[in-house]
């Protein structure tokens, strides 16, 4: 079975997020002074072939820790693992 997974990787809370800071700094000049706490992360979408949803989820979790993020500075959160509707996985 093919499953589509979406993983969000973000800097650990407390660590400086220069990207978020830069965006936040630019917003008032664009007329949005009501925005705060901007954080930017990575988002990874992939297709995994697995026997069932559970197996797929376990593997994605494993990958998130070992490859998609560096646990020293980042947290990875699996947002979604769903069965791939025809062709959905195609990027």
């Amino acid at each position, binding site marked *: 079975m093919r499953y589509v997974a979406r993983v969000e990787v973000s800097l650990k809370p407390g*660590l400086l997020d*220069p990207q978020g*800071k830069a965006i936040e700094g630019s917003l008032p000049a664009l007329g949005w002074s009501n925005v705060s706490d901007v954080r930017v992360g990575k988002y990874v979408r992939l297709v995994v072939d697995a026997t069932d949803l559970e197996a797929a989820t376990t593997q994605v979790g494993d990958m998130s820790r070992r490859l998609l993020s560096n646990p020293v*500075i980042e947290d990875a959160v699996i947002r979604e693992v769903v069965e791939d509707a025809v062709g959905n996985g195609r990027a």
Partner: protein
Amino acid sequence: MNEPLHRRLGLTDDELESISSTIGRDPNPTELAMYAAMWSEHCSYKSSKVHLRNLPTDGPRVLVGPGQDAGAIDVGDGVAVVFKMESHSHPSAVEPYQGAATGVGGIVRDIISMGARPIALLDPLRFGPLTDERNRWLFDGVVAGIGGYGNCIGVPTVGGEVHFGAPHSANPTINVMCLGIAPADRLVTAAKAPPAGSLLVLFGASTGRDGIGGVSVLASRTLEDDAAESRPSVQIGDPFAGKLLIEASMEMVERGLLEGLQDLGGAGLTCAASETATRAGLGAEVDLDTVPLRQDDLEPFEILTSESQERMLAVVVPERMDDVIEVCTRWGLGAAVIGRLLDEGGTLDVRHRGAEVARVPARSLADGAPVYSRPMSVPLERDDLLADDPTFTTMTTPVGDALLRMLSAPNVASKRWVWEQYDSIVQGGTVLGPGGDAALVRIEGTLKALALATDGKGRYGALDPYLGAAHAVAESARNVACTGATPLAITNCLNFGNPERPEVMWQFAESIRGIADACRAIETPVTGGNVSFYNESGDSAIWPTAVIGMVGLIHDYRLAVRHAFGDGTLVYVMGETFPELGGSEFAESVLGVVAGRPPALDLERERSLHSLLVDSARRDLIRSAHDCGDGGLAIALAESAMAGSTGFAVSIPGDLPSHVALFAESASRAVVTVDPARASELEDLAADLRVPFARIGETGGPRMVFDQIADVTVDEATATYEDAIPKLMSGERVLREAG
């Protein structure tokens, strides 16, 4: 975990006692954290100080010697050159991109704090073999991190080196050197004594909980299983803020707004405030409520020891404050008055929420750490290693094959993969970038250029730390001289294992002795440097790695000599070749051993060679020059041929076996080419300077011909040399995406 707090912070019982007797009472936890940071090995140099005193630090050109944020020399025309090298190995081992990036940011701020504009970066690096997945991840991330920061702040990375050795697997060695220039009369140094009442102004990024205890936890301990615990001390770099910090600082210095300027590095605010006060010979008060914070729930000790990046501390007289704020605002940087220098007592008085949280003598933090004379002993395996000398093995591999094998050995192979990831031309001063013997960066408005090279000899250091360190000085000076520049002064980064082990301490002391002897002979004083200990895991330490950063000067960069061959010249070897394959690249990559006695080093001969190289450049006498380093004569010839896409035909004189003659790494040699019409002039000069020489052949054609020994096309050699590292790094088999 019911260890007492001071031990958990890395202080010994004796150190605690010394603190208590200094302040006349038991320190509170905040004070303890401040002392732990300042008295850490990284900040206090407590194990290395007794040895560092033996380095020569004086010379007619030295403006600022060791002890300041960076050293400085006078290069004439009222220009001061400020430079320094530092390590960021520990953070890079757990987060290569950010570890390396923040290493660049840190060394750049050292230069800024002297009032100099950074104009060049170099990055000497050591990794374990690239056949290992984790080493590739580290290599990929570190190089990306150095580029990520250096490219973004607009300081060209013009040189460096990369070597690979198994002992660096668990502990990569990440050093970065920065060089800047300033009008000599505008250096910000201790010479200027700020008056009491001056304001302490923290500007740049806000302070967060990152990098708490970085120096005491990461940089002053080994990376054992408690790595997980030390992990949060890695910081995230913000090169954009770093660039703004450069511009704002330069503007303040140029407008004369500052009485002093200090970066916030290891031990953060504690270090900056205590050193500033100590240098001024005054006390200081700091109000932590005025420090701009990223999170509002920081404890006093966290604010005091946070190593958040991209911050500087300025000392400003009140009348200048408005101007300072104006500059910071224009560059989009925050600035806050966090305290002032005080007349009385020399104490550092820290307040938080209306209460006093620390009150200690500033000088005891900055200068009061104990100085240790740690026990030393010669490593047991040393004699065996020296006895097992590969110089005397018989050779079965054909020389041509050995040559190609060595050209593809990662230590020798082209480092283009690395330096193409660095902007080496921004600022428009790069006369010679990466790829040659030394980089040349011109001093704007003059015909002068600074020559820069870094060298460290890992294998030699492992076999004989004294020789290893002395060779590193000699080779870096030779690299500089090859371009036609006169070596002037060095900085260094000394990377070693755990100093509490007597063998490591012995290696360290021997290395210092080697640097000192070589620097005295070559007349290149030491203006500063950095010591990085605890580079080990379990009982396996890195190779003792003394990395030298050499600075030289050429008076007219239009006369600079390159290493590429041109057509129709005569090829000379300057210097003498001995049967010396101990610790050589040939021994490692062809015979598979790291053993033997490293080549001897005669510093008088070395100096004569430098004179020859500098004189012939000044007279526009030679067409190319390239030193014989890793891989010896054969590799030097091949590198010059590949650089100029021009072959050669040589025959090797003497009666050494051909592989010894070609691959021995005897010191004080260079390959030089000259137009036939001027050959006798070169020979006369060499004779005058008593440099032994041999004319071995001529340049031209598409082949590299070693008479009767080997014959390889330049194209084949180039393909082998250029493809080696990209191939090892390809297949995109890289763990974790950096950046």
